[in-house]
Every structure is written in C-alpha cells, then in structure tokens.
C-alpha cells in the first residue's frame, strides 16, 4: 500500500496532462450516479471505462471502493477517499494528498453491495494481472492460486496472451487449467482441462481433483434419480451396521440408541424406595437386570423405549446408504476420477524412486559407519565395541574445529583429516594397550572394548555436556536436488553418498593395490606364514586397527553433518553397524556394501509400509536380521575355502 501511495505521489508530481488526458475525478464525475449508488447491472460501464483509461490511480480507487472508503462531498459533489468514521479525513483520489477533515454529516458514503464488490474484485485482479511490475503480477497469480474462485477464470485467461514472462505465463496457464477444470463453462471445456492437468504430479492439482470428487454421505429411503451418485453402500459389507445406524440417527430417520450410560443414568434418576422398576438396587450389577428395570420404566412411560435389535434391522433395511458427488456433472467426475488414478499411479512410481533414493542415502550412512568395523572385525577378527565411540570422537572433532574455524567449508576440509588423525591415534593406542593382549580371546576383547566404550562415552559427556552439539554443513550443501514434486534429495545426503563411494574406492585400493593391503591380507590369512615372510604382524595389526578407527572418525564427521552430535550417537550406530557387517559377510568389503544396502533398503521399506512408527520399523528389521542369520549364518558374501575357517 505504501509503495502504491508513493507511485501515486510520484505521478502527481508530473505535469498535469503529460501522462493522461483526464483525471480520475473527471472520469468519476461523468459516472457520478454509478459511483454513488452502484448497482450490479450499471457498474460494468464504469469499470470498463476505468480499465480503458489506464489510469494508475484506478487501482487505488477500486481497492478503496471495495473497502467502502469512497465518499462524496455533499457541498460540491467531488469524490474522495475517506478515512476514519467521524470526522472523516478526505484524501484526493488523483494526487493522494490529504485535503482536510469534515464531519460525517457533510459527506455521503458509497456502499457497493456484495455483487458489485465481487465485480470490483475481478476488475482489480485484472489490473494486477496486467500490471507492468512482475512481482505484482506473480502476487496476483499467487492470490488466485490460494483462493481459486470461479470469477478469476476469465481475467486470468485474458491475461495469458499478453504475459511477457515465460515462467509466469506457464504458471498462469497451469492455474487457468486448474480453474477451468473446476469452473469451466461447458462440460467439454472442463473434461479437456482435467485431461490436460492430469500430467501434473503436484499437490495442488491433486487437491483440485479431490475437490471435484468431494462426496457427501447420504441416506434416504430411495436412491435419488438425478443425483451424481459416487457409491452405494451395502450395510454389513462396506459400512458397519453401527455406523449406518448412526447416520440414520443423524438424519433423524431413526430414534437414537439408548446406551449403557444412558440406561444407568435413567435408572439412577428413577430410584424409588431402594428399587427401580420393581428391581432391587443391589441386584442391578448386571446388564440383564438393568435391561429389565429399564423396560419396566419404559412401560410406565418414564423413559424412551429401548431400540431393539429388530428395530435397528428394520430401519437399516428400509434405507439406502450412498455417497453423492457434490459436482452434479457425471462426465466431469468420471474424467477427474480417471485423471486422479493416472496421477496416483505416477505418484506411486515417483514415491518408489524417492524411497529408493532415501534407502540409498541411509545405506551409505550405514556403510560409512560400518566400513571401519568391517576392517577391524572382518579382516582382523577383532570385535570393537568402542567403534561407535570413535564415530562420536570424529563428530566432536568436527565440532571443535568449527569452534576455531568459522568458515564452514574450510572447517569441514580441516575436520575430515583431523578426525582421521585423532581416531587413528586413539585406535592405535587402544590396540597397543588392550587389544594386542587379547587376540586369542575374542569374547574378552568384546568386553574390554565395551569398558573403553563406557569410559569414552562418559568422558565425552563430562567434557561436552549432555546436550546435542551442532556440526553445521557449508551453505552450498543446503537445500535439495528436486526432480519433481515427489522426488527430492538433500545435497547433504548426496555428499554422504559420494563420500561413501570415495571410501569404498579408497579402501578397495588400499587393500588390493598397495603393499600395506597385501600385508594386511597376508596377516589375515595366516599370521605365522606372513611373519616368516618378513612381515611384522604386530605392526600390520596396529596399522589395520588404526585405519579402521580412522575411517570411523571420518564417518563421524559425515554423520554429524546430518544428525546431532551427542555423546550417545555412537551407541545409536553400533548395533546397526554390527548387523551390517554380520549380514554382509565378515571379512569382505563388498559384503559390507551389500549388508548396508540390504539394511538401509529394508529399514526404509518397512518405514514406508508403516510410516507412523519408526520404532516398529527398527523392531521388525532386527527380527528380520535375526531370521536372516539363521539361513545365511555367514552373511550375504560368504568366504569360501580355507579363508572361511574360524
């Protein structure tokens, strides 16, 4: 509004007669009667003239008129915008200047009725749709999209051809299609429009179609002859008898049932001398006695009679239960139904693709979390319950780096190698101090590393507190890659996916193509033989353990970017990580990949079947894994031959 006033002021400063031949006041004076006492029939001429004049003030005038703010000064018959009840502040319509206040009795207000105001509104939309300002035009389109009214169709269609902006033109055409589907003049127009919008997956198109298919439950003795009936219910099959009777009661076609509560209240209200309807009060502790007492009361006419089962059956049989489309045109509802079905199918496909992407991103998170474990547990046969805490250490490293380096891109780039270094060090220390002594006692390794895990978790709690710490991703990772209205994936998940791929490649490279990898594989297969070939198994074990732990640290940074950093975050991933390794098959990077894919896909799949309940999804997933291990105890990718020996 303020901007518009500025515009008006700016125009007022221009020399009179430069931009326009006549003022708004002149125009209004030539239609003084229509302005003063607007009628639905006569006002069209005035609005047409206003549109034709192309006066910029016309918009302000129309808005004020719609809001009943136009007054006529009785003394000279001039029109003003009047603000306030009494006194009324008069504002010149052409210049926007305040020309003083007058008493309420000196002016008469123009009061356009509902029909006229609707016409004014249409004209206003027309103005805005043709406004030279792009933002204003797009605001007008937004406004139409929000309200979707029949009156907006014609101005919208009129503005399409003149629209210079291609994107906005497309939006206008789309919106016009949706409006035509609902409010088009002929059945043919509407059916065509519906077919046209059925290629669109967006939520608002589906909302339009659903609005066309709105139904109303109805009950009557006979099916109405000329209604657009959506469905006729069969009581008992697709409508329960209780619900059907409820509908009858709501439509006042049958007396309401007397429920247990109502019976009790009626009995309580009619207790006389310790008895109700001839039954002693103390005997009323079962339904049969209560029914008997109630029947006696009903016989005396004190309470409405019970509706018996037979009564219910009779009234249900005497009525038809059906749904009627609010849209009377059968051709339109049929087309909408077909269009909706087509859209639902395509939405379903898109959802499946979206689910696949979600599963992929979850799988890459599990893969990142588990790959370090796959190296320590799978390759070395050492179970490391503190693996989750190494993930946590990596995430906290990222957090601490961000405290010192405010630039998020740079801080992540520093944090990744630093997290690797920190957890590599922690892993090597742990291997030297603890695990080295327990190589032949796997169960005790489990317990000792669990002790370390408790200590590390509590230590993190003592240092960083219990509340979640943020690990902020760089701005260029904000937002999501949007394919259509259903399929979208956030950039951060793509980044994690890419990171998982990079690590897969890196680990395969290290294990298969480097000297270290060769030695690691040699020690894995036969430490004694490897040692006699001049490999130092101690050193290799230490480095392998460090490598696995270091990768956990990097996974921690990645997971921290997308989840919260807390002292318990490691514990959240440890069981899933073990599952991933065990399901995939121990001692094999590809197995871990397969395990992560299976578990990620499974979890998303179960969540999709039962979206309200992620707890149930996890429960069922674990049950599935327990069963899976029954049938493939060695995992998806099982080692064969001598390497498989324990």
């Amino acid at each position, binding site marked *: 509004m303020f901007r518009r006033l500025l515009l008006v002021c700016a125009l007022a400063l221009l020399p009179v007669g430069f931009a326009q031949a006549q003022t708004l006041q002149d125009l209004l004076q030539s239609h003084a009667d229509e302005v003063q006492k607007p009628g639905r029939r006569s006002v069209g001429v005035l609005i047409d003239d206003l549109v034709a004049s192309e006066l910029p003030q016309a918009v302000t005038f129309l808005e004020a008129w719609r809001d009943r703010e136009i007054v006529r000064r009785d003394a000279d018959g001039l029109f003003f915008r009047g603000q306030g009840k009494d006194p009324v502040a008069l504002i010149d319509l052409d210049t926007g200047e305040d020309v003083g206040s007058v008493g309420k009795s000196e002016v008469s207000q123009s009061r356009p009725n509902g029909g006229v105001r609707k016409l004014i509104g249409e004209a206003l939309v027309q103005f805005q749709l043709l406004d030279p300002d792009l933002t204003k035009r797009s605001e007008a389109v937004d406004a139409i999209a929000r309200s979707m009214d029949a009156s907006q169709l014609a101005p919208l269609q009129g503005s399409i051809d003149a629209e210079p902006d291609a994107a906005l033109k497309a939006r206008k055409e789309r919106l016009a299609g949706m409006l035509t589907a609902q409010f088009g003049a002929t059945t043919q127009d509407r059916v065509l429009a519906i077919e046209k919008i059925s290629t669109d997956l967006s939520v608002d198109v589906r909302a339009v179609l659903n609005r066309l298919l709105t139904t109303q439950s109805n009950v009557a003795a006979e099916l109405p002859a000329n209604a657009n009936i959506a469905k006729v219910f069969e009581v008992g099959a697709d409508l329960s008898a209780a619900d059907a009777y409820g509908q009858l009661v709501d439509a006042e076609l049958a007396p309401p049932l007397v429920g*247990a509560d109502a019976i*009790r209240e009626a*009995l*309580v209200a009619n*207790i006389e001398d310790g008895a*109700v309807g001839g039954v002693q*009060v*103390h005997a*009323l*502790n*079962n*339904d049969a006695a*209560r029914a008997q007492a109630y029947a006696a009361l009903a016989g005396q006419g004190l309470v409405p009679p019970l509706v018996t089962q037979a009564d219910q059956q009779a009234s249900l049989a005497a009525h038809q239960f059906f749904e009627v489309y609010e849209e009377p045109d059968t051709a339109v509802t049929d087309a909408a139904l077909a269009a909706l079905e087509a859209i639902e199918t395509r939405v379903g496909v898109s959802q499946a693709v979206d689910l696949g992407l979600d599963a992929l991103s979850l799988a890459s998170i599990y893969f990142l979390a588990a790959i370090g474990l796959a190296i320590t547990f799978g390759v070395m046969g050492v*179970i490391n319950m503190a693996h989750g805490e190494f993930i946590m250490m990596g995430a906290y490293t990222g957090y601490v780096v961000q405290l010192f380096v405010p630039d998020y891109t740079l801080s992540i780039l520093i944090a990744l190698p630093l997290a690797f270094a920190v957890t590599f060090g922690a892993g090597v220390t742990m291997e030297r101090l*603890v695990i080295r*002594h*327990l190589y032949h006692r*796997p*169960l*005790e390794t*489990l*317990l*000792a590393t*669990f*002790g*370390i*895990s*408790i*200590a*590390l*978790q*509590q*230590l993190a*709690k*003592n240092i960083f507190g219990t509340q979640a710490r943020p690990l902020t991703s760089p701005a260029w990772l904000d937002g999501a890659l949007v394919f259509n209205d259903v399929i979208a994936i956030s950039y951060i998940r793509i980044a994690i996916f890419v990171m998982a791929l990079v690590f897969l490649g890196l680990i395969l490279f290290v294990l298969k193509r480097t000297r270290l990898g060769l030695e690691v594989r040699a020690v894995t297969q036969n430490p004694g033989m490897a040692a006699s070939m001049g490999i130092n198994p101690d050193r290799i074990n230490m480095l392998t353990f460090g490598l696995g732990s270091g990768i956990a640290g990097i996974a921690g940074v990645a997971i921290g970017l997308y989840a919260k950093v807390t002292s318990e975050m490691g*514990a959240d991933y440890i*069981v899933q990580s*073990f*599952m991933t390794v*065990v399901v995939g098959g121990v001692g094999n990077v590809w197995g871990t990949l397969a395990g992560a894919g299976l578990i990620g896909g499974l979890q998303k799949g179960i969540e999709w079947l039962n979206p309200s*309940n992620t*707890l*149930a999804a*996890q*429960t069922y997933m*674990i*049950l599935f*894994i*327990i*069963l899976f*291990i*029954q*049938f493939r*105890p060695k995992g998806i990718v099982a080692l064969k031959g001598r390497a498989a020996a*324990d």
Partner: protein
Amino acid sequence: MQRSFIAQNPSVLWFLLALSLFTLGVTILSEAFGSGLISTSFVKTLGKTLCLCLIAVAMDVVWGYCGILSLGHFAFFGLGGYAVGMWLMYARTEALIIESLASQPIPPTPQEISDAIGNQIFGVVGSSEFPLIWAFADSLFLQLLMVVLVPGLLALVFGWLAFRSRVTGVYLSILTQAMTLALSLYLFQNDSGLRGNNGLSGLQNIPGFEQTGQATLSIVFFWASAFALGVGYLFFAWVVSGKMGSVIKGIRDNEARVRFLGYHVESYKLFVFTITAVVSAIAGALYYPQAGIINPGEIAPIASIYLAVWVAIGGRGRLYGAVIGAAFVSLLSSWFTGGGAPDIPLGFYTIQWTDWWLVLLGLSFVAVTLFFPKGIGGLFDYVFRKPS
C-alpha cells in the same frame, strides 16, 4: 547323592551359610523388627541386589560355564518383571476402581468395572481397551505361570534357531544383543499393550496387603529374594557339577571336540540357555515389585552388558564369583551415582563421582579383563588353595 554333591562342593555350603547369616542380620537390623538400623529403602536395595545376584549366577552358568556370552539375559529379567507387574497393576487398579464405584447409587456391572480399569491403566497411552496379552492379568496364578512360560518360550525358540544354525562366539553375542534391542524398542511403542515408555508403575503396592506397611513388605520380599538366590545357587551348583557339568564345561572349552565325542551339543546349550532365562525371569519377577516401576529402558542392551561386567569382575566360572561381582559392583555403583562418595577436589578441578564413576568403571573393567581374568573370585584361590 545329595551328600556327595555337597561334599564335592563345600563352597555351596559356605555360600548358603553366609547367605543365611546375612539374611538373619539384615532382618534383625531392619525397621520391621524394631531396631531400624537399616532403613526400609536400604532393605529394598539389598533385596534388589539379591535378585541381581541371582541373574548374575544364571549369567555365569551360561557364560562362565557354557561359554555362551549372552548379551540378552536382561530381556528375560524384564519380561519376568512385566509378567508379574501386569497382575500387580491390574489387581491394584481393580481394587481401587471397585472402591470408587461402590459409592455410586447402583452397583456397577462387570463390564463397567473392566472398562474403568482399562481406562485407568491405558489412559496414559490414549487407549482404554485391554490388549490380548492382558487376558490372564486378573489371575495371579496364570500370571506367575507367564513369568516362567513367556521368557522360557522366547529363549527356547531363539536358542533353537541360533544354535541350530551354529551361530557361535561373538555372532551369538551380537544376535542376543539385537534380540534385547528389538524387544525394548517394541515395548517403547505405545501400542505394544504394555503402556509404552511409561511402563508399569505402582508395583510396590501388593494387592491384598494394603494395610501392611512397606517396612514389612520389604523384608518379606528380601526373604523371598534370599530364598530364591539360595535355591537358584543350589540348583545351578548341581547343574554344573557332575557329568552334565563336565559336558557343559567341555562345550565352553572345545565345542567341536565335544560334538565329535557324540554329545548333542545343541541340546545342552539350549537347555542351559533356556533354564538360565527362566531363572533370570524369576529374578526379575522378584526384583520389580521391590523397585516399584518397570519400563522398557530397563531392558535396553546396556543392562545386559552390565550384567556381563558384573560377572567378569566377580570372576567367571565360579558361582560365588558372580554373586560377589553383582553385589559389589551394583552396590558400589549406586553408592557412587547416588552421591554417596565424597568429591575429590584437585584444586583446578573437582572430580564429582556422579560424572566420573562410569569412566572409572569402564577403565577398571578393562583392567580386570586384562590383568585379572579370574576376577575378584580369583582372590579366593590364593586364600584357600595353594597356587599351582
């Protein structure tokens, strides 16, 4: 037979003697018998500790003797608690409801009572219907049967599946951990029928004994716990001695060799796994009426791992070691976390044990595993036997 069994295992006799003396001592010093040197809440703590000792003994049998590191025995403990808690909660709510409905002008019907109880119990999770699993909740006998049957069947099915496919070692540990995780996640749901994360509460009020004070109830439960521990200890001592005990220990030391000798290893393992699960459930059924509340957090995987910690610190492969470990660590733990231990000021930093206790526990656990694999119980070897 009995004579020779005791004669072979004099430690059983010593243990039972010590337990009886301990029970007698606590009874005399308790509030219920006047002197009040031991407060009611501490009697409850001691009673709960005895239950923990019982499950630790079961854990020792399955791990220390049979070599199955189960990280899921607390699931059975919790299930036992839930089973008995259902009856306690139902019966108590029923008594309260009948009392409150008695003031109404006309007597309630059975349906009204049942609806009101359902509303009272399940209102907190937005429901009022009784789930199917509460079908026996009105009968103490059936519900006590459930204490044994439900965990027993779960252990039987789980163990049968796991042992049949020769899942051993750390795989089995992780699988049992997954089982308890799945169970606790399931119970956390509101529609699990066991009040979601609210759990069952008010279990310390025993229906039918409303007039009896908590001081008396606590000492009765203490006796029951001590009795259960004594019987459980005797039973397990008998199981692990003799021929069967030798087979079980053989499975721990070399499973393949025992199988080649012709023993059906899976049956032995299944027997040990199931029977320890049942004893764990009984321990849980005695524990939770003393604790007063049970919720799914109790059976989170961490609880079962702590159980392994107790047994490891106490000393595996000897039943009294498990008892010592459970009693020592759980009492020490509640002393530290309850703020009983004095803070240590270091000048620049004050060590508060509520924060640092877990660090200490974790590290001492590592130390025990590394340097004292026999645990505290190993100390007895130095005292009673000549080092070999």
